[in-house]
C-alpha cells in the first residue's frame, strides 16, 4: 500500500472518530436538550477521540519509517550472494546502493547489478511485506485508539482539559525548536571540528599563518602538503568587514539622524521604504553587482590614478557589502534615536543649542548604547555574509592590510571546501566545519553582547 493511501485512510479514520465521538457525547447527555450535563462542549469529545485515533498511529508511522530501512538492509546483507558475503564498509555501501537502484527499477545493467538481481527482488519483497505490515498495524492502532476514546466518553469526562493539555504540549514543543536548532548547530559543527582538531593541532589552526587546504592525493606529490593556518582568513574577513563598516556606519547613522531629526514626515515616508528595498535585495544580486560592475569600475579608477587594484579587491567587495548593511544600521539606529525622550531634546534646544549640537551632545550620547549594539549586530552580519564574498572576493589566502589587494574570507573558504564532491572525512572538508565553529562562536558572542547592550538601554527609558 502506498504511503499516501495509508495517510488518506488514517485521515478518514480520524474524521470518523471525531464524528462518532461527538455524536456519542450528545447521546450520553440525552440529546441536545441535556447538553448542559456534559463537562465540555460536544466538539471537545470529538477532538479527544480524534487525537486518540491519530496520535498512536502517526507515532508508529514515524518510528517505522526511521527503523525499517536499517532492519531490512540487515536482512539483505545476510542474503547477499556468495562473492559479496565478505565485503565490509564503504564497498558494502556501494553494493547495497546497487541493490536499491535495481529495486527502484533504474538499473543500468552493469555486471554487478546482474549478479544482484535476486537480492534486489528479495529486497523488494521485504519492502512490500514491511509496508503492508505497517499499514495493517497503523490502521488497527487508529481503530483501537478511536474506539477506546469513544468507549471512555461519559458526561463527566473532562474532554476539554485533555485536549487542551495536548495542545499545550504541542505549543511547548514548538517553542523548544529554537533550542534544538542551536543545539543541532553546535553539535554538528563541534563534532566535525573535533575530528579536524584531532588531525591538525588546535594552535596550528588558530595561529598558523599559512592556509592552503589542498591535501596531497598521492604521498609523493609536490607542493600540496595542506596547511591549515587560519590567520590569513581572519585578517581577510576583518579587512573586508572593516571596509564595509567604514561605509555602512557613517552613512547609515547619518541617514537615521537625518530621517529622525530633520526630514519632513513626507520625505521620511518616501525614503524609508526605498531604503527597505535596499535591505530586501538578495545578497546574490549584490555579489553579482560587486563582481561584474564594481570590480571593473574600481580597476579602471585605480589605473587612472596610477594604482594597482586587484580585480577581486577587498575594497570593491567591502564597498558593496557596506551598502548592503546601510539599511540595517540605519533602521536599528532609527529605532534607538526615536526612543530617546523628546524632553531631552527640548531641554537642550531651550538652552540655545542648535539642532546639530543637540544631536551630537545630547541625543547621540543618550542613544549610544543602542547604536553600539546595532553596530555590533552589523559587524556580525558582515563577518557572516557569504554570497557577496563568494562571488566577488578572492580565493587565495593572503595576509595584507591593503584593501586594493585580493583577500579571502572564512565564509568563502567554507563554501569552496564544501561545494562539489568530497569525501566526508578528509581534513579539507572537516576544516570547513572548524571554520564554521569559529564563525558561529564569534557571531554568537557579538549577538549576545549586542542583545544585552540593547536590552539594557531600552529598559533605561521605558
Amino acid at each position, binding site marked *: 500500500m502506498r504511503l499516501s493511501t495509508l495517510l488518506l485512510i488514517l485521515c478518514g479514520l480520524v474524521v470518523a472518530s471525531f464524528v462518532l465521538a461527538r455524536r456519542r457525547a450528545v447521546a450520553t447527555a440525552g440529546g441536545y436538550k441535556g447538553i448542559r450535563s456534559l463537562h465540555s462542549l460536544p466538539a471537545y469529545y470529538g477532538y479527544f477521540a480524534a487525537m486518540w485515533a491519530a496520535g498512536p498511529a502517526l507515532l508508529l508511522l514515524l518510528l517505522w519509517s526511521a527503523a525499517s530501512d536499517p532492519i531490512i538492509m540487515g536482512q539483505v546483507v545476510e542474503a547477499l550472494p556468495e562473492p559479496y558475503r565478505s565485503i565490509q564498509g564503504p564497498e558494502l555501501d556501494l553494493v547495497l546502493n546497487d541493490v536499491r537502484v535495481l529495486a527502484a527499477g533504474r538499473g543500468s545493467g552493469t555486471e554487478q547489478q546482474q549478479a544482484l538481481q535476486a537480492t534486489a527482488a528479495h529486497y523488494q519483497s521485504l519492502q512490500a511485506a514491511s509496508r503492508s505490515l505497517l499499514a495493517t498495524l497503523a490502521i488497527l492502532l487508529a481503530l483501537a485508539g478511536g474506539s477506546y476514546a469513544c468507549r471512555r466518553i461519559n458526561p463527566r469526562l473532562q474532554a*476539554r482539559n485533555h485536549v487542551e493539555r495536548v495542545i499545550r504540549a504541542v*505549543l*511547548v514543543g*514548538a*517553542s*523548544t*525548536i*529554537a*533550542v534544538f*536548532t542551536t543545539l543541532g*548547530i553546535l553539535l*554538528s559543527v563541534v563534532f566535525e571540528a573535533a575530528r579536524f582538531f584531532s588531525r591538525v593541532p588546535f594552535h596550528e589552526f588558530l595561529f598558523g599563518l599559512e592556509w592552503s587546504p589542498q591535501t596531497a592525493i598521492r604521498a609523493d606529490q609536490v607542493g600540496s602538503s595542506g596547511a591549515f593556518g587560519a590567520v590569513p582568513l581572519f585578517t581577510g574577513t576583518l579587512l573586508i568587514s572593516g571596509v564595509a563598516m567604514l561605509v555602512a556606519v*557613517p*552613512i547609515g547613522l*547619518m*541617514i537615521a539622524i*537625518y*530621517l529622525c*531629526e*530633520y*526630514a519632513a514626515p513626507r520625505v521620511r515616508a518616501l*525614503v524609508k521604504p*526605498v*531604503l527597505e528595498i535596499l535591505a*530586501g*535585495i*538578495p*545578497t*546574490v*544580486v549584490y*555579489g*553579482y*553587482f560587486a*563582481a561584474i560592475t564594481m570590480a571593473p569600475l574600481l580597476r579602471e579608477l585605480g589605473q587612472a590614478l596610477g594604482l594597482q587594484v586587484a580585480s577581486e579587491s577587498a575594497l570593491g567587495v567591502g564597498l558593496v557589502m557596506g551598502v548592503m548593511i546601510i539599511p540595517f544600521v*540605519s533602521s536599528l539606529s532609527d529605532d534607538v534615536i526615536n526612543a530617546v525622550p523628546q524632553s531631552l531634546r527640548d531641554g537642550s534646544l531651550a538652552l540655545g543649542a*542648535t539642532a*546639530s549640537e543637540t544631536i551630537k551632545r545630547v541625543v547621540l550620547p543618550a542613544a549610544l548604547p543602542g547604536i553600539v549594539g546595532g553596530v555590533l*549586530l552589523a559587524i*556580525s*552580519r558582515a*563577518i*557572516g*555574509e*557569504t*554570497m557577496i564574498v*563568494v*562571488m566577488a572576493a578572492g580565493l587565495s589566502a593572503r595576509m595584507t592590510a591593503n584593501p586594493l589587494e585580493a583577500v579571502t574570507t572564512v565564509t568563502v573558504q567554507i*563554501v569552496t571546501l*564544501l*561545494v562539489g564532491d568530497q569525501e566526508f572525512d578528509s581534513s579539507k572538508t572537516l576544516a*570547513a*566545519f572548524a571554520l*564554521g565553529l569559529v*564563525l*558561529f562562536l564569534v*557571531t*554568537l558572542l557579538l*549577538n549576545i553582547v*549586542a*542583545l544585552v547592550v540593547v536590552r539594557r538601554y531600552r529598559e533605561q527609558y521605558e
Partner: protein
Amino acid sequence: MNTELPPPDRNPASARVRQIVEAGLVRRYRRERRFRAYGLLSVVSGVLFLGFLLTTIVLNGYSAFRQTKLQLDLDLDPVVLGLGDGADSGALASADYQAVVKAGLGRLFPQVVDRKERRELNALASASAGYTLRDMVVAHPDLVGRRITAWLPADDKVDMLFKGRVGRGSDAGGQLNQAQFAWVDELIADGRVALRFNTAFFTNGDSREPEMAGIWGATKGSFFMLMVTLVLSFPLGVAAAIYLEEFAPRNRWVDFIEVNINNLAAVPSIVFGLLGLAVFINFFGMPRSAPLVGGLVLSLMTLPVIIIASRAALRAVPPSVREAALGIGSSPMQMVFHHVLPLAMPGMLTGAIIGMARALGESAPLLMVGMVAFIVDVPSTPLDPATVLPVQIYLWADSPERAFAERTSAAILVLLGFLLVMNMAAVWLRSRFERHW
C-alpha cells in the same frame, strides 16, 4: 558686528556672555548647515546607489527576454531525418533534426563546401535548434516530407552580435571569425535574422547553451522549497509565539528560549547550511540537492523571523479582548484560539510573507546542501534534484559565455519581481487588516 546690535542690558557679565555667544553664532550655524548637508548627502547616496544598482541590472538584462532567431527553409525529408517507413512517434522524437537544420543553412550558402567552413557555418544556428524543430514536428507529425519555413534559435554568439552586446574587434577571443561575420551580415540583409520573444528562457531548465537555458527549473525548485518552508515554519512559528506570549511562565528556561530565538535570527545563514549538511544529509541520509532538504534548512532559518513577528502581532491585541473572553467563561486556550489568534492573524501572515521573501532570496545555506548542481530537468516533486532562482543566478554569474551575463541579469529581474510581489502583498495585508485599538 555687535556694535550694530541694540545695547545689551546693563549687567557687564551678561553682556560679555552675549558677546561670546554671538561671536560663535556664524560658525555654529555653518556647522549646523554642514551637518544637515551630510545627512542629506547620506540619504541621497543611499537612494542613488539603489538607482545605480537597479539601472545596471535592467540595462544588462532586459535584452535577454528576446532571443535572436534565424529564418530557415527546411526540408523535412524522411531520408535526412533518418526515418524509416513505419515511423512511430518514438522514432519521430529521436530523428536527426540537426541534420535538417544544417541542410537548411547550407542551402542559403551553397558556395560553402569546405568541411571546416561548413562546420563554422553550422555553428551559426544553436546546437539545440534541432530540439526546437523536433518539438514542432512531434506536435504536427504531418509536417514530415514537407518544406517549411521556421524561425530557429541562433547561436549565443550570433545573438550577442545581433543585440550589439559584443563588437567585431579582433580581440574578441572565442568569438565569431571573419567568414562568420560575413554570413551573419548576409543573413541580416536577407531579413532572416530577427529578435523574438524568448520563450525558452521561461519554460526551460538549465542548459550549457545560453540560448536554451531557462529559469523554469529553478523557479519550480524555489516554489517547492518555499512550500516546504511555509508548511513547516509557519505553524511551528505561530505555535511557539503563542506559547511564549500567552502561556509561558517567566522563568530561566523561557528566558533561555528567548535568547536562543533572538540569537538564531542573527546567526549567519551559512552556519544553517553546515547544520543541514551535517544533520539532514550526512546523519539522516536525506537526498542531496532536493528542495525538501533546502526547505528544511530554510524553515529553521525562517522560524525566528516568524516567531518574532507573530509575538509582536499577539502583543498588539489589547488585553481587554482577553479579559472579555475570560470574563464570559472561556478557558485560556479558548480565549487564545477563538479571540486573540484571529485578531493577530494578519500581522502573523505579514511576518510570514516577509520571512518567505527572505527565504526566496537566500542562497548560501543551499550551496551547502548541494542545491548548486547543474540540473537540466525540471523537478516535479520536492524530492527531485533541483536548484533555486538565487543559486541559478550564482551559477550563471560564473559562466564565461557573454550571453549568460545577460541571462543572469534577466534572472535577477525575475527574482526581484517575485520579491516585489511578495512584499507588496505584505504591505497590502498590513494596510487592509491593520487595526488601531
